């Protein structure tokens, strides 16, 4: 047989196996980056592995978990901070985004330019913008207090005070992501059928009635998607808190993400950090499952 037929045979073979040939690289990379590391994370959470020591980690059963549930008070506070941040910022983004979408749902001159300017918070590097916000919120030299004084308001301590650090961080998160919720909801509004709105106007429904009885139910798929995406994202936020407050003052903004980082790379407590990581994973999974169940029930009637 000659050269070309063996080349042909190789081609035939790749054609038959194309399904595997094409998906194998992605599957292998994802397995290496997710499957084995997650297994390793769970395994490490049962050991006393330390980053600093070279000795082999020892299996210590559930000791890390009992420490986290019963001995470490900060775990519960940290869990609360994580949930507070995620739910607070998600609600803020959805409400503001909805308001903006309703406001911008019309045609006007300069629409494209204005919309592009609104996109800037999403594009800009979060670490750089967190740095900018931490400068703006500086109690001594920051400009925010100066602008507040224009409105006749007193000075705030922003991220330097245990009482205001969480609202300040949520504010930055809402500033960062509201343009995205706005854009998705606006796309949703533009895709709605017109008939129900015309019928409602004929029937003399008020604007509030139109919004609560027609717009909201019709937008439900979009709202659900955003709720899921933003909530899961909010539970994972690390950059902003790490740069702006670093978890302080007095651990008042130390979410689970920050606590895990500090335990692992600050205190070199890898075993304990892994146990915390498993908890965070579990919380995110639980919230997603609850959301999906909730949606199924709502849709079944």
């Amino acid at each position, binding site marked *: 047989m000659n050269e070309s037929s063996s080349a042909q045979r190789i*081609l035939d073979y790749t054609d038959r196996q194309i399904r595997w040939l094409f*998906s194998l690289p992605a599957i292998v990379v994802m397995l290496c980056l997710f499957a084995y590391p997650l297994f*390793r*994370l769970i395994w490490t959470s049962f050991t006393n592995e330390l980053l600093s020591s070279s000795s082999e980690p020892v299996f210590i059963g559930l000791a890390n978990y009992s420490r986290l549930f019963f001995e470490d008070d900060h775990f519960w506070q940290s869990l609360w901070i994580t949930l507070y941040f995620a739910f607070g910022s998600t609600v803020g983004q959805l409400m503001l985004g909805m308001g903006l979408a309703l406001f911008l749902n019309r045609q006007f001159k300069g629409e494209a330019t204005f919309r592009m300017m609104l996109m800037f918070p999403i594009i800009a590097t979060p670490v750089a913008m967190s740095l900018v916000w931490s400068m703006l919120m500086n109690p001594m030299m920051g400009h925010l207090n100066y602008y507040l004084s224009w409105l006749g308001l007193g000075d705030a301590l922003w991220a330097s005070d245990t009482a205001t650090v969480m609202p300040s961080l949520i504010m930055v998160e809402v500033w960062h992501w509201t343009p995205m919720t706005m854009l998705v909801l606006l796309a949703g509004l533009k895709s709605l059928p017109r008939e129900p709105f015309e019928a409602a106007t004929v029937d003399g429904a008020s604007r509030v009635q139109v919004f609560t009885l027609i717009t909201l139910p019709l937008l439900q798929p979009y709202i659900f998607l955003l709720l899921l995406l933003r909530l899961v994202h909010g539970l994972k936020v690390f950059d902003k808190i790490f740069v702006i407050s670093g978890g302080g003052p007095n651990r008042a903004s130390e979410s689970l993400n920050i606590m895990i980082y500090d335990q692992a790379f600050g205190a070199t407590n890898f075993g304990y950090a892994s146990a915390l990581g498993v908890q*965070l994973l579990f919380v995110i999974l639980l919230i997603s499952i609850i959301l999906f169940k909730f949606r199924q029930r709502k849709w079944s009637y």
Partner: protein
Amino acid sequence: MNRLLLQKRVARLAFYVVLGGVVLIFFFPFLWVVFTSLQEAGNAGAVPPDFFAAPTLDNYRNVFEEGEFLSCLWNSTIVVLLTLVANLVISMPAAYIIARNRQGWMMFLILFLQMAPWITLLLPWYIIFKKLGLYDTYFGLVLSNLTFMIPFTIWLMLGFFEDVPIEVEEAAWLDGCSRMGTFIRIVVPLVKGGIITITTLGFMFCWNIFIFPLVLAGYDTKTLPVFVFGFMADNQLDFGPLAAAALLTMLPVIIFVLINQKYFKQGIAFGGGK
């Protein structure tokens, strides 16, 4: 009649005033950072701000003289470009196969993978990467970026591949084109829009990612976001250089996205955000 016209005009004016206010709230940190980066050392942190002070480029010189800045800029660029290329080579064929075989469970798996918080993945990665010698290498950083790029790309490309009619491919097969050849020569050019969208959003995600290089990059491969964070610790309260560093860090990604803004909007409206 005249009154109605006047009312309309006032309503329009009110709309633009409110719109201007909204845009200002979202945009003013950017105005502030440009303004502050051009202030002299003594002026940058002044309250009330001196809006008419003479601008200076000293702060930018300060950042460039840091020395590390240029090498971090280089590292960021290399990691982003390598990630984008590797991602397309790995994800496009996979997305194509999933689109053609309609494997719904794959979508669910992809959504599920997106839920894992980066920090929990970083714990095992750190140990594994150290063991395999991937710590502080470009390869390691590219690999870490692929964790969000691959699911995101597959998710976004599915729609584009499903829009390519199977008849086009069948015609190519009948003409004796291999399946691999059909994919590269016929299908890929038809989903160009998707590729540009992925490149635009991917550039943004990879340029901006902080937590991966924070843990996985050492001195040799430090990227710009990590540089800015370190710069912040070194120059506390020195607002001028800090503002310049922040601005220089985000300028490349802002320019890149503005060039491709059509595709950026498309991708974000699709439900974007990791």
